[in-house]
Every structure is written in structure tokens, then in C-alpha cells.
């Protein structure tokens, strides 16, 4: 009898551990802006006007962002919100390329990553003329056109 009880507990635990995955899958359904919860609307506020025009898979990605958002410190959360709108306007191809290169960036040696961060820090601090000069000298790092500072 006790054996059946333990078996039932283990089965219950394994089935209930699937619920968060099911909940995330449910979130990915075609939800209009009005049906998002308060936290999701708060994070995805920059997309409020565009949300109902997004494709279901785009919404799914955005909801994943909203899911990861609370795990970040405030300064990174601010960056996410600042960049959300332009990110949603990028083409799927550009976003996929960006994801691949972000992973590549993470696999760089630590000193290279730090060097790149420092370059971007200096670039952000520089005057428009200096930034223009840096872009023409290092288009591979700063791009050809002015990006977000």
C-alpha cells in the first residue's frame, strides 16, 4: 500500500514538472495585446502599437524575452526595453544572423571580449565627428552607419 503511495507521488511529481513547459507553450499562442498579463505588457510596452501585427512566432520570441527580463539587473533591463522596437523591426534573417554572432561573440577569448567592449565604450563617449572617423577606420566593429549609441 505504501509502495503504491510512493509510486503515485513520483508520477505526480514528474507530470507536474511538465506544467511550466506547457504554460510557456500556451503563452506562445496567438495572444492579442489585451490578453497579455500585466508583467508581459510592462516589459513589452515599446511594442504595444505593433504587437497585434506581429506574427505568432515573433510574439513567441518576444514573450521569451519578457520571461527572461526579470532575471536581469536594472541597467540591462533598460537596454532591453530601449532596443526592443528596433529588434522587432529587423528581418528574420538579420535576427538569426545576430543570434549566431552573439553566440560567436560569447565564445571569444575574454581579453578580446573586453577589448571590444572598451572600443564600444569609447565610441559611445566620442563626439559625432570622432564616431564618424572610427566608423570609417573600423566599419567591421562600428558598422558603416550610425547605430544606437
Amino acid at each position: 500500500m505504501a509502495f503504491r503511495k510512493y509510486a503515485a507521488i513520483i508520477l505526480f511529481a514528474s507530470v507536474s514538472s511538465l506544467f511550466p513547459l506547457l504554460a510557456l507553450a500556451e503563452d506562445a499562442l496567438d495572444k492579442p495585446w489585451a490578453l497579455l498579463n500585466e508583467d508581459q505588457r510592462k516589459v513589452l510596452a515599446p511594442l504595444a502599437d505593433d504587437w497585434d501585427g506581429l506574427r505568432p512566432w515573433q510574439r513567441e520570441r518576444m514573450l521569451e524575452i519578457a520571461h527572461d527580463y526579470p532575471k536581469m539587473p536594472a541597467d540591462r533591463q533598460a537596454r532591453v526595453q530601449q532596443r526592443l522596437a528596433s529588434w522587432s523591426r529587423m528581418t528574420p534573417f538579420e535576427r538569426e544572423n545576430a543570434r549566431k554572432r552573439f553566440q560567436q561573440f560569447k565564445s571569444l577569448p575574454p581579453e578580446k571580449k573586453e577589448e571590444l567592449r572598451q572600443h564600444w565604450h569609447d565610441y559611445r563617449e566620442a563626439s559625432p565627428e570622432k564616431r564618424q572617423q572610427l566608423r570609417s577606420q573600423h566599419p567591421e566593429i562600428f558598422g558603416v552607419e550610425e547605430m544606437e549609441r
Partner: protein
Amino acid sequence: MKINTENQQTELRDQALAKCVVTLLNEQAMTVDTRIASQLSYSRQQALANMAMPSSGMTISQNGVLRLFRNYWHQYSLLLTLLMCGLGLLVLLAMQNMANQEEAEQGDAYLLASDLPPEIYSNEGFGTWLSENTQQ
């Protein structure tokens, strides 16, 4: 010598008594009621079956191999199968969770929160620069 003779006599008396008991029991068995005979036969079969079945979940086979929970397996095969499936599922989920932890900071949110703007990651020139510097 005298003690030995007394012992032998006692033994013979016991044997005679036992024979007498057996004879009486056999005579009674011939006249026993069919219902009682059937109940006795059933009880005997039960007793023999219980003797054949080991009392604990642990037995030692003829070649000396220790076998655990053999009887439990026969009794609860469906439950044990479900239990093993449940445990397998838990292990799978635990492994998936560990893999997710390793892949932490791989979602789009982390890309957007990166030190570099997302547009730079979609820049072809930056891709080339990354490939060159990753190989070094």
C-alpha cells in the same frame, strides 16, 4: 545396560502409539465428510504454496545469485513499470534543466541586453571580424 534397555522399551512404546494414531487417523479419513476433505485439501495446497514462496523480497537462487524483489515484480509489474517511466521522465527533465542552465543567457533578451547593440551582430563585417578573432 539397564538404562539402555529402558530407553529401547520407551522407544518401542512410542512407535506403537504412533502407529496406533496413524491407523486411527486413516480410519477416520476414510469416513470424513466430503466438504471437510475438500477444505483440508485446499488448506494443504495453500500451505505447500506458502512453503514454496520465500517470505521476504530477497532470495538466493540455486547458483547463489542474490535476487531482490523478484516477488514484488510479479505482484506489481504494472506499477513498477509506471514508476520506472516516472523516474526516467524525472531524470530526463533534470538533464534538460541542467542543459538549460548551461545555455543560460542565450535567449534574445540577453542579446538585447548585450554591451554591443544588436544591429552590430547582424553586420557582415562584424561577422568576419568575429570569425578571424575566434580562430586566433
